[in-house]
């Protein structure tokens, strides 16, 4: 690999040091940092709520917090983790930072819109934090009617406002990415030369733009019914509660793919780099991404198999849910095949990526149990579902997010993190995660419903295992905060391309200058042009 000449320009971090220079920035890289700070704060708020939940569930009796407090805890955990961490996590941080760099562009298409979307996110966040201070909300993150419109006496409208507002931030980010990918690619960066990370974020952006407005409308209708008693969802007012579920899941199922597709993109970048291999089946990977994004819109009814929707609707949604598992399976097989005859280095990002493949496989396969409609009747609304989607969202998305943070840390900050600590944290998180969530599969099959403040004593052993795992997981999540933070000040300076990686983002200095590239970089004729036979420099 040729040595890249220093650009001789100040890096984007040196463009201004005042707080004002940060909060008025239009640089996609600085906006990515702003998002990173904000979502990290929300991650630990949501995590604190989860810690309280797991502490309460150590004993079968509700002895730590009251039932109402418990209900507020799982609601805030869900609302914060879904809308204020997982949805923006990879797209708004790594996506914002990397998409222009990866396609050889100097900026996103609409830099002002980009900073606006961050402000909208913060405004939504203020609503949610105010909801917490005012006394919380107890509807669950799903806001099911008529409980949320007629029977809850907590701050439903405030919380719904927060989610409504933050939705516009993801719509604007999605819009920005779509236009950026269409219009800003460097000469030679054809669609089938784009990194899978860009493909994944592009597909995610389409989902954001198409699905999020439906959520916004649904939440407005909910607020109208709650405040003005307009009959939409409440049968006492002539409405239909299942209508809410249809509208809510029309957004919230595709939202799962908003959370996991970008993670798949990250993993493709990391595995190819540390196996020194081209991705196996590049085009199938692209089509799989689009297939997941497309089918993802047609499966929302699988959340409603026991809701009273028509039996035949249930069967159609069951069939479509099996279909969406096919492209997911293709991706797992292709990652595995990519390792074949590679030259594999077990760096911290690679450990996270391999962890992702394992946990996503388990999470995806248990999704088949829930797609099998007769079996779902027993398993839905139990801990089996909790375990399933945490394997996808925490085992999958959060692992990939952390892997991506480590992989691009030198590029983003210009510093190297401590590799040994990175590996230790990855292993602790993997072990803690499995201990937390695997017992929940068994709890679900044995019939423990979700959102239970108290539970029968026969479930205690598995709940103690799960809570023990959660405490290990908490240590694992706090560790990177320490050693990554330390590296910001004491870490060795990073070269432009510490991993000898192939993407365009590595063809500029670390950290990049404000305009990313001094001159437009040359695009490789094939993506991921790694070769396992040549030892990396």
């Amino acid at each position, binding site marked *: 690999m040729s040595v890249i000449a220093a650009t001789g320009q100040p890096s984007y971090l040196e463009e201004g040091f005042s707080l004002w220079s940060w909060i008025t920035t239009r640089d996609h890289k600085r906006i990515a940092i702003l998002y990173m700070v904000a979502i990290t704060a929300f991650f630990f708020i949501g995590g604190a709520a989860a810690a309280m939940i797991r502490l309460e569930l150590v004993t079968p009796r509700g002895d730590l917090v009251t*039932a109402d407090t418990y*209900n507020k805890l799982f609601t805030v955990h869900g609302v914060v983790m879904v809308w204020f961490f997982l949805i923006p996590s990879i797209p708004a941080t790594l996506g914002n930072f990397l998409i222009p760099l990866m396609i050889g562009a100097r900026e996103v298409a609409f830099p002002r819109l980009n900073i606006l979307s961050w402000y909208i996110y913060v405004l939504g966040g203020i609503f949610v934090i105010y909801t917490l201070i005012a006394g919380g909300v*107890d509807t669950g993150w799903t806001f*099911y009617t*008529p*409980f949320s419109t*007629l*029977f809850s006496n907590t701050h439903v409208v405030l919380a719904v406002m927060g989610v409504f507002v933050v939705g516009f931030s993801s719509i604007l980010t999605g819009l920005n990415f779509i236009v950026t990918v269409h219009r800003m690619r460097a000469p030679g960066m054809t669609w089938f030369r784009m990194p899978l990370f860009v493909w994944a974020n592009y597909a995610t952006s389409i989902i954001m733009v198409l699905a999020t407005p439906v959520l916004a409308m649904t939440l407005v209708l909910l607020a109208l019914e709650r405040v003005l008693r307009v009959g939409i969802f409440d049968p*006492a007012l002539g*409405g239909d*509660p299942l209508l809410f579920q249809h509208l809510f899941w029309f957004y919230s199922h595709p939202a799962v793919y908003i959370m996991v597709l970008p993670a798949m993109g990250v993993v493709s970048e990391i595995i190819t780099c540390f*196996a020194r291999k*081209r991705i196996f089946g590049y*085009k*199938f990977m692209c089509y799989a991404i689009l297939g997941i994004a497309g089918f993802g819109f047609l499966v929302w009814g699988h959340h409603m198999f*026991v*809701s*009273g929707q028509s*039996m035949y609707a249930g*069967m159609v949604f*069951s*069939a479509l849910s099996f279909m969406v598992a*096919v492209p997911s*399976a*293709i991706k797992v097989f292709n990652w*595995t095949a990519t390792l*074949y*005859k*590679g*030259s*594999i*280095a077990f760096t911290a990002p690679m450990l996270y990526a*391999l962890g992702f493949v394992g946990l996503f*496989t388990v999470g995806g*396969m*248990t999704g*088949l*149990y829930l*797609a*099998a409609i*007769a*079996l*779902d*009747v*027993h398993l*839905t*609304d*139990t801990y089996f579902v909790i375990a399933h989607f945490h394997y996808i969202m925490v085992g999958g998305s959060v692992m990939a997010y952390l892997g991506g943070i480590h992989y691009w840390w030198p590029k983003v900050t210009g510093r190297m993190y401590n590799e040994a600590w990175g590996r230790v944290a990855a292993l602790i998180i993997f072990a803690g995660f499995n201990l937390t969530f695997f017992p929940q599969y*068994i709890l679900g099959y*044995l*019939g423990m*419903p979700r*959102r239970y*403040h*108290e539970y*029968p004593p*026969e479930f*205690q*052993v598995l709940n103690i295992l799960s809570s023990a795992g959660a405490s290990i997981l908490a240590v694992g999540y706090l560790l990177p905060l320490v050693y990554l933070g330390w590296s910001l000040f004491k870490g060795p300076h990073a070269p432009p391309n510490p991993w000898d990686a192939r993407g365009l983002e590595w063809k500029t200095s670390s950290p990049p200058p404000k305009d990313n590239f001094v001159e437009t970089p040359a695009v490789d004729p094939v993506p991921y042009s790694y070769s396992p*036979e040549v030892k990396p420099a």
Partner: protein
Amino acid sequence: MKWYIAAASDVAPKVDALFFTLLAVTGIVAAAIFVLIVFFCIRYRRSAVVDRSGAPANWLPLELGWTLTPLAIFLGLFAWAAYVYGSFYRDVPGAMPIFVVGKQWMWKIEHADGRREIDEMHLPVGQPVKLVIASEDVIHSFYMPAFRLKQDAVPGRYTTLSFTPTQTGTYDLRCSEYCGTDHARMGGTITVLAPQDFAMWLEKGGTEPDMAARGFAAFRRLGCSGCHDARSSVHAPDLNGIYGRIVHLQDGRSVIADEGYIRDSILLPKRDVVVGFEPVMPSFAGQATEGDILEIIAYLKSTGKARP
């Protein structure tokens, strides 16, 4: 700690067969993937001296193979599961009706002969049962883990569930749809009795009037009979034997007068007006409880049987 769960209905072994088949299929595939990943990771670790040449970057037959094989397996699993699911909602002739009303935070059960229970449900073993489930407030879910069945109780509509208990014993009854403060405490027990024990249990219920009789009382108390009685001067449809009949509506639709239709006619009388009648009936929302309505339906069903 209990590591197993009783399988006490005709449905349970079918659902368990699906579960363990899936466990086997996904277990084998997951094990194969993990073994391959670990094998590749060891054999092709960076420090290993090994032939790394000639690995293809794509191979269409392999891609098609691992696209189409899962697809075929998935379609098979789908069809099997959908077939089992269909039976949960199939009407079995001679099924014993049981009426369930969910309410924050209790389950109210009513048997056709009028025996009422709260947070308990007694069933005879081997007798097909059809649950008709309603809710008085928010959405609940009637969850019987040992039967592998649950069904949401949704305000504003009836849901049903058909099954046969196959083993005597006592099983858990829970609520599995979050419904507010005491969601975790909403539940109780299901007791499956031998037929003779069940008959004895019913008799101990004593002198309570049966459900249809209570429905007739409600029919009078709420004033339904004032218009719908044959001797009434108000022009209103005769309801004798209405249950299960085809009703022709003013807007040209024809519907079967099932539980849901009767319920809607009581609460939303202007929605399905019978052809030839004026929409003069007031809504009984707020006056008739879910229990009243279920009893009135039982009464109307009994009038059907009385006809020659």
